[in-house]
């Protein structure tokens, strides 16, 4: 799953002016640029809203992980609309409920707690990506 065609698609929400939306995007960058750069591809939610052809194709052809900052779950909803296969719907609020000491504040620039929360979200997503790898590897072995 390391070719361009089989990288896990990461779709963060685009909540503007909301710390939890910023956490979702920071977590996505952390996963795609630092934790699993060769195994993931970032797709902007706005491209799915616009129906941009390449973004829709990537979502339709790869497992997707969505990261949402609020209960509207815009990222998950848009990926489903484009017939994507979501392997994990991450809600930042749920992660925060498990880490009450990491209250995100700030929008353009998250406070330290918000940045830590983003790293926690990113690590959980990285673990999910590893599970996807393992499942695909096992599936491939079964079919070998």
């Amino acid at each position, binding site marked *: 799953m390391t070719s361009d065609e089989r990288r896990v698609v990461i779709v963060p929400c685009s909540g503007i002016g*909301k*710390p*939890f939306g910023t956490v979702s995007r920071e977590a996505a960058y952390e996963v795609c640029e630092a934790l699993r750069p060769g195994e993931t591809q970032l797709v902007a939610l706005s491209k799915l809203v616009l129906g941009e052809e390449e973004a829709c194709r990537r979502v339709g052809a790869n497992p997707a992980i969505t990261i949402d*900052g*609020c*209960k509207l779950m815009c990222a998950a909803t848009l990926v489903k609309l484009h017939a994507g296969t979501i392997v994990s719907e991450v809600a930042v*609020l749920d992660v*925060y*409920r498990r880490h*009450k000491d990491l*209250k995100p504040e700030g929008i353009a620039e998250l406070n330290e707690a918000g940045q830590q929360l983003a790293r926690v979200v990113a690590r959980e997503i990285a673990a999910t990506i590893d599970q996807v790898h393992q499942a695909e590897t096992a599936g491939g072995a079964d079919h070998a």
Partner: protein
Amino acid sequence: MPDYLETTVGKFTFRVPTDRFYSADGVWLQPQGGNQVRVGVTDYLQQHSGDLAFVSTKPRGTRLVLEEEFAALETIKVNLSLPSPVAGTLVEVNEALGTAPERVNQDPYREGWLVVIEAANWDVERTRLLDPDAYFAVMRSQVEAEIRQP
């Protein structure tokens, strides 16, 4: 199922059940018989405040004076301190909210109740509260004020 007063503003619909009393702060009180009232937050207050992250209430047995905080809500947008609309003793708390605070957002008038208070004197206390029509008018003015904000 109670009847509701209802208003829709843009994509938001706000409901006000007609079977209970209200404070202007957005707290509802539903008589349970005797001096006991079940207490929660209104549909407007929960929608205005955003998704709940945590709910904390004063412990069972706490004696409350009027306007003393009986619960605190932390949402993705704000921290709310809820003043008690009646004096009395807190006799029950909704323990389920400890693990499922989202119930306040999902069902503010039933599953999302916060506490039960034994009012010191409900017959007197309720005269200070708003009936559904009065709260509905207050809520509409709050909504309209919010819309006018730049």
